C-alpha cells in the first residue's frame, strides 16, 4: 500500500468513527425525561434516585457484558465494595464527605476488579460463571465473618453525610440527592460513551464477536478485558457508593446473587451493547417492580420470570431492539 493510499484509508476510517461518535438529537431524550421527572413527580425523587443508581449499575455491566461479552454472575461484588467503602468510611472513620467518598469507592472497587479480573478472565463458560459468583459470595461471607466491623446482616444503619460541596444540605424528599445522582450519572455516561466509541471500544467488540481472530491479529485480549473489567468495577463501585449515600444505610444483601441477577435482567430487558439499554431497562424494571411488588411480590416474581423467557424467545435484543426492528419494518414498507 502506498503512503498516500494509507493516508486516505486512515482518513476514511477517522471520518467513519467521528460520524458514529457524533451525538444524535435522540440521545438527549433520556436526560430530558430525567429532568422532566424532577418537575412532574417531585414527591417521588427518592425512588427516582434509586432508578438512576440502577441505570449506572446496568451501564457498568453493559460495558463488560454488552461490549466485551463477558458473562458474569457476580457483578454485585463491585456494587457492594463501593457501598461498603462509603459506609465503613462514614461509620468507622467519620469520613462523611460525599464526593471524595465516590472516588474512594471507585478506587476500592477498581482495585478488586483489577485483581479478580486479572485472575479470572482467562476462564470461560461455566467456570467463569461460577468463579464470578463465588467471588461475590466470598466477599459477603467475609463481611459476615467480621460483623464486628461490617455490622453483619444488620448492616450499618443511620449513616449521615456532610452537605454536598459543603453547601447543599439534604431535604426530606431527596431533591438534592436526585440532582446529585443525575449529575454523577451524566459524568459517568460521558466517560463510558467515550470508551465505547474509542478504538479500545472497537477492540472490545471484536473480542466479543471473535476472540480467535483478535488473538490472530495480535490484539492483547487479556489486557483489554482486564482493563474494561476494572473500569466497569469502578463504575459499579460508584453506583454502590451512591446507593449507600442516598439510603443512609447498607447491609450485606448488596452482595446477594439476586442483586447480580437483577442488574443483568434490567440490562437484557433494555438491550445489551447499546448504552441506552441500561436506561430503558432499569427504568422499566424499577417502575414495574415498584407497582407490581406492592400488589403481590409472588405475582411480580412470576411476571419477571415470564418476561425473561419471552425476551429470550422473541426479543433477544431487548426493548430497544424491538423498537429498532419496528423502525426497520417501517423503513422497509416505505421503500415499497
Amino acid at each position, binding site marked *: 500500500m502506498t503512503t498516500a493510499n494509507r493516508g486516505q484509508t486512515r482518513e476514511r476510517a477517522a471520518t467513519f468513527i467521528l460520524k458514529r461518535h457524533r451525538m444524535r438529537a435522540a440521545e438527549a431524550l433520556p436526560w430530558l425525561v430525567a429532568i422532566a421527572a424532577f418537575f412532574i413527580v417531585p414527591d417521588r425523587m427518592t425512588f427516582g434516585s434509586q432508578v438512576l443508581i440502577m441505570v449506572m449499575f446496568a451501564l457498568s455491566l453493559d460495558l463488560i457484558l454488552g461490549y466485551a461479552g463477558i458473562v458474569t454472575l457476580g457483578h454485585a461484588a463491585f456494587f457492594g465494595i463501593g457501598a461498603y467503602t462509603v459506609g465503613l468510611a462514614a461509620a468507622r472513620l467519620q469520613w462523611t464527605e460525599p464526593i471524595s467518598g465516590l472516588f474512594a469507592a471507585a478506587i476500592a472497587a477498581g482495585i478488586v476488579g483489577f485483581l479478580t479480573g486479572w485472575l479470572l478472565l482467562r476462564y470461560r463458560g461455566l467456570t467463569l460463571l461460577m468463579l464470578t459468583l463465588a467471588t461475590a459470595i466470598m466477599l459477603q*461471607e467475609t463481611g459476615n465473618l467480621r460483623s464486628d466491623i461490617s455490622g453483619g446482616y444488620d448492616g450499618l444503619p443511620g449513616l449521615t453525610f456532610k452537605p454536598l460541596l459543603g453547601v447543599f444540605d439534604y431535604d426530606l424528599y431527596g431533591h438534592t440527592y436526585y440532582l446529585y445522582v443525575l449529575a454523577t450519572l451524566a459524568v459517568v455516561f460521558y466517560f463510558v460513551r467515550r470508551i465505547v466509541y474509542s478504538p479500545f471500544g472497537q477492540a472490545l467488540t471484536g473480542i466479543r464477536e471473535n476472540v480467535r481472530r483478535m488473538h490472530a491479529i495480535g490484539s492483547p485480549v487479556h489486557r483489554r478485558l482486564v482493563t474494561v473489567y476494572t473500569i466497569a468495577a469502578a463504575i459499579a463501585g460508584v453506583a454502590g457508593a451512591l446507593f449507600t449515600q442516598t439510603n443512609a444505610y447498607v447491609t450485606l444483601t448488596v452482595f446477594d446473587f439476586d442483586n447480580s441477577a437483577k442488574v*443483568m435482567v434490567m440490562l437484557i430487558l433494555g438491550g445489551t451493547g447499546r448504552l441506552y439499554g441500561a436506561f430503558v431497562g432499569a427504568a422499566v424494571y424499577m417502575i414495574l417492580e415498584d407497582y407490581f411488588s406492592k400488589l403481590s411480590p409472588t405475582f411480580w416474581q412470576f411476571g419477571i420470570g415470564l418476561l425473561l423467557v419471552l425476551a429470550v424467545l422473541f426479543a433477544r435484543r431487548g426493548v430497544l431492539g424491538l423498537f429498532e426492528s419496528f423502525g426497520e419494518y417501517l423503513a422497509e414498507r416505505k421503500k415499497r
Partner: protein
Amino acid sequence: MPHVANIAVSILFDGLAYAMFLFITSVGLSVTMGLMGFVNLAHGAFAMAGGYIVVSLTRTLGIDFIPSLVIASLVVGAVSVLFERGLYRRLYKATDLEQVLLTIGLAFMAIATFTYFYGPIPKSVPLPAWLEGDVNLGFRNFPTYRAFLIVLGTALIAVLWYAFERTNIGAKIRAAVDNRRMAESVGINVDRLFTLTFALGSGLAALGGGLAIQLLGLSPSFAVLYLVLFLIVVAVGGLGSLKGTLLAALVIGVFDTAGKYLLADAGGFFVYAVTVAVLLVKPAGFYGRE
C-alpha cells in the same frame, strides 16, 4: 470415644450424607451440561418441584414416604421432557447468556408458582417409623435418616456406574459427551439420547428434592438457594463426568459440613474458597476435558 475423634466422625458421617444428596441432585445436571453444553439454571426448580410433590403425596393423599419419592421422580422426569421438547430445544445453539436467562426465568416462575400454592414457610413430611431416631453402628449412634441417605446414595452410584460404563446406552452417552459430532456421524441419535438423560437427570433431581425435605428443609427459595451448590459440584467435578461429580460432591459435602461444625460464623466461605482454588488450578474441574 475422645471428643475430637467424635467430632471428626460426625463431620465425616454428616458430610457423607450431604454429599449423597448433592450427588443425586447434581449428576443429571452434569451429564446434560456435558452432552449439550446447556446451562440449565432451572435444575434446582425441578428438585424443588419433586420435593413439593412428595409433600402433597404424603400429607394430602397419605401415601408412604418411599413410594411418594418414586412417584415424584417419575412425574418430574416425565414433565421435564415437555420442557426439553418445547423450550430448551430451541436454545441449544444459543449463547450461554441466553440459556442462563431463559432458565433463570423458568426458575423464577417456578418459585412464584410454588409460593402461591404452598406458601413461603418450610414444609416437613411424615417419615416411616423405621427412618426415625438413631441407629447404633457398634461404637456410637447415628441418625437413621442420614444412614439411609448414605445407603441409598451408594446403591444409586452403583446402578448409575453400571448403566454408564457397562450398557450400550451408557457407552453412547459417553461417546456423545466426548465428541458429539463424531458420535452423530456414527449414527447415534444424540437428540433422543439427550431427551432421555434430561428426563433421567430431572427425575433424580426430584428424588434429591424429596430427600432434602428432612435434611435441609424445603421452601420455594430452594430452587435458587441450592442451585449454586449443584452448579459448583458440576463445575468442580467436570462436565459430563460421573466420577468427577461424585468426587466433587464428596469434597463439597464434607467441606461444607466441616465449615458449619467448626466455624459456624464463616458459613459457606469454605465451600467457595475450595471451589475457587480447584477451578483456578483445574478450570475444567477434576475430570473435565480441557
